[in-house]
C-alpha cells in the first residue's frame, strides 16, 4: 500500500515537471517577446513586411509560409499514409505488409537534413525543369519533402489503430458476406477514426516544427508567396536564419513572437483534436 503511494507521488512529480516545463517555455518566450508586444509592434507583426533595414519586423509571410507548407504536405501525405496503412494492416498483413512496415519504421529515424540534401540535388532541379518557373526552391518542393517526412509517422499510428479493431467485428463482416473494402469503410474506419486524428495531429505538428527541410529547399524569401511555386519562408526557418542577429536588436526579439505563434498553433491543433475526441466521448486517445 505504501509502495503504491510512493510510486504515485513519483509519477505526480514527473507529470507536474513536464507541465511546468511546457508552461515555463511559454512564459519565457512571452517575457522575452514583451518588448515587441508592448512597444506597439504587435499589430505590425501581422501587417508589415519583413524589412529590418527599414525597421519593419512583420512576420505575416512566415506565418503564411508555415501554414501553406504544412497544410500542403498533409494534403500529399494523408492519402498516401491512409493507403499504405490499409495495405499493411487490412489488405495484406502478411509478409509483404511486414516488410513495408519495417521500411516505414526505418524511415521515421532518417534525419531531416538527409531529406533536405536529397531534395536540393534531386527534387529542386526536377521541379525547376518541370514547371519552368522560378528556381525550383519553392513551397511545393518543401511540402513534397515534408510529406515524405511525416508519412511514416502517420502510417504507423494509422495501422496500429486499424489493428486494434476486434477480430470478432471483422469476422462478423465476413459472415455477412462483406469484402475487405466494405469491412474497412463500415467497420474499421468508424472504429479507428480517433487514431486517424491522433496521427494527423502528430503529423501536422511535425510538419510545422521541422526546420531543416524548409530552410534548405523552400528558398526562404521574405515576400508573401503568391503561388505554391513561389519561394517561401517558414517560422522555424526564419528563426534559424535570424538567430545570428544581435541579442539586443528588435530583429532578434521578434523571434520570440515567432516562437509564441508556433506554440499557439500547436496548442490550437492539439486542443481541437482533443475537443473532437471528447465530444465523441469514448476510448483512450493514444
Amino acid at each position, binding site marked *: 500500500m505504501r509502495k503504491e503511494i510512493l510510486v504515485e507521488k513519483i509519477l505526480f512529480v514527473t507529470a507536474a515537471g513536464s507541465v511546468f516545463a511546457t508552461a515555463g517555455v511559454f512564459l519565457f518566450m512571452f517575457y522575452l517577446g514583451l518588448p515587441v508586444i508592448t512597444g506597439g509592434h504587435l499589430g505590425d507583426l501581422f501587417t508589415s*513586411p*519583413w*524589412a*529590418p*533595414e527599414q525597421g519593419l519586423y512583420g512576420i505575416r*509571410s512566415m506565418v503564411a509560409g508555415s501554414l501553406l507548407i504544412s497544410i500542403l504536405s498533409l494534403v500529399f501525405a494523408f492519402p498516401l499514409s491512409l493507403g499504405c496503412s490499409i495495405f499493411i494492416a487490412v489488405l495484406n498483413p502478411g509478409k509483404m505488409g511486414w516488410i513495408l512496415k519495417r521500411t516505414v519504421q526505418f524511415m521515421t529515424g532518417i534525419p531531416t*537534413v538527409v531529406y533536405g540534401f536529397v531534395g*536540393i*540535388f534531386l527534387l*529542386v*532541379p526536377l521541379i*525547376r525543369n518541370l514547371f519552368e*518557373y*522560378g*528556381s*525550383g*526552391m519553392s513551397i511545393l518542393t518543401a511540402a513534397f519533402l515534408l510529406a515524405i517526412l511525416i508519412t511514416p509517422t502517420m502510417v504507423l499510428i494509422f495501422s496500429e489503430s486499424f489493428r486494434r479493431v476486434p477480430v470478432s467485428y471483422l469476422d462478423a463482416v465476413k459472415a455477412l458476406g462483406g469484402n475487405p473494402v466494405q469491412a474497412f469503410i463500415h467497420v474499421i474506419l468508424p472504429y479507428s477514426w480517433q487514431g486517424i486524428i491522433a496521427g494527423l495531429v502528430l503529423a501536422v505538428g511535425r510538419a510545422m516544427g521541422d*526546420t*531543416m527541410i524548409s*530552410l534548405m529547399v523552400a*528558398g*526562404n*524569401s*521574405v*515576400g508573401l508567396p503568391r503561388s505554391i511555386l*513561389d*519561394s517561401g*519562408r517558414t517560422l522555424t526557418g526564419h528563426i*534559424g*536564419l*535570424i*538567430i*545570428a*542577429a*544581435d*541579442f539586443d536588436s528588435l*530583429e532578434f526579439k521578434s523571434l520570440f513572437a515567432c516562437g509564441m505563434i508556433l506554440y499557439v498553433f500547436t496548442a490550437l491543433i492539439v486542443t481541437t483534436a482533443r475537443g473532437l475526441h471528447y465530444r465523441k466521448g469514448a476510448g483512450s486517445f493514444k
Partner: protein
Amino acid sequence: MKLNTTIFGISLFLLLVSGLSAQPAAVSTSSLEPFSGEKGTVRISGGTAHIPVMREAASRIMKFNRDIRITIAGGGSGAGIRQVGEGLVDIGNSGRMATEAEISKYDLRIFELAVDGVAVVVNPRNPVKALSSPELRGIYSGKISNWKELGGNDKQITVYTRDNSSGTRAVFWDKALNRSMITDRAHFAVSNGAMKAAVSQDPNGIGYISAGHIDRSVSPVALDGILPGLENIKSGTYPVSRILYANTRSNSRALALKFVDYLLTGEGQDLFAEKGFIPVR
C-alpha cells in the same frame, strides 16, 4: 546558430574528406614552432568567407601538434562577434568591422587578416558575364526580372542573398548596391558555401560570394567592366572589397592568440594568398 553550425559541420566534413587527397607536400615547421608543447582546444566561429583558410591553418597546426584541437564553425559575421564576446568561442571571425557598440560591450581585440573582394556570381551556363552597376541594382531590386533583358536566355532571374548578420551582405549592399532595396522575392542562403552551391545548381541564379570562394562551379561577373580578380581587388579598381577580421576578447587564452599570430606570419599570409585573398602584410 545551432542550425548553421550543423550545416557547417556537414560541409566542413565533406570538404575535409575531399581535401585529404590533395595535401601540400611539405610544410615548413618554423612558423608552427610556437605551438610545440601546447595543449588544448581553440574554438572558432563566425564569418564564412574565412573558412577555407581557417581549415587549412587548423589542419597544419593539428598535424604539427596532435594535442591541439581546433574546431571551426560558420554562423556569419554577426554570430562570430557575438559568440566571441560571450565567451562561447575563442576566435570570432567577421567580414566586417565590429561596430562601436560591439567593441565596447564585449571588450574585443581586433586583428586584420586579409583583404577580400565580394564577387557577383552566376551559373557557368549563363551567357551574361558582365553587368553595369545600374543593371545589378535593377536585378536586386526586382525591376529586371528576366535574363533576356540583359542579353541572356529568356529565363526568370533567381536572386540569392544572405541574412542581415552576414558581413558579405553588408559589404555587397553598401558598395555594390549603394544601399538600394533588395527584392522580397530574393532567396536566402545561410553561408558563402551555401550561396555558391545554390548558384552552381541554379542556371538562372545570381548571387554574391567572397572572392576567395570562387571556383569553376560558378562564374564571376565583371562589374562595370571590371572582373573581381586578385589584381583588381588589390589595386582597388574593383570596388566591392572589405577586410577580413579575427576578433578575440582582451582576456582570450594564449593558444587562441597564437592561432591568430600564425595567420599573420608569412606562412599564414601565404595561405590567404593561396585561397584567393590579398594578404595584409
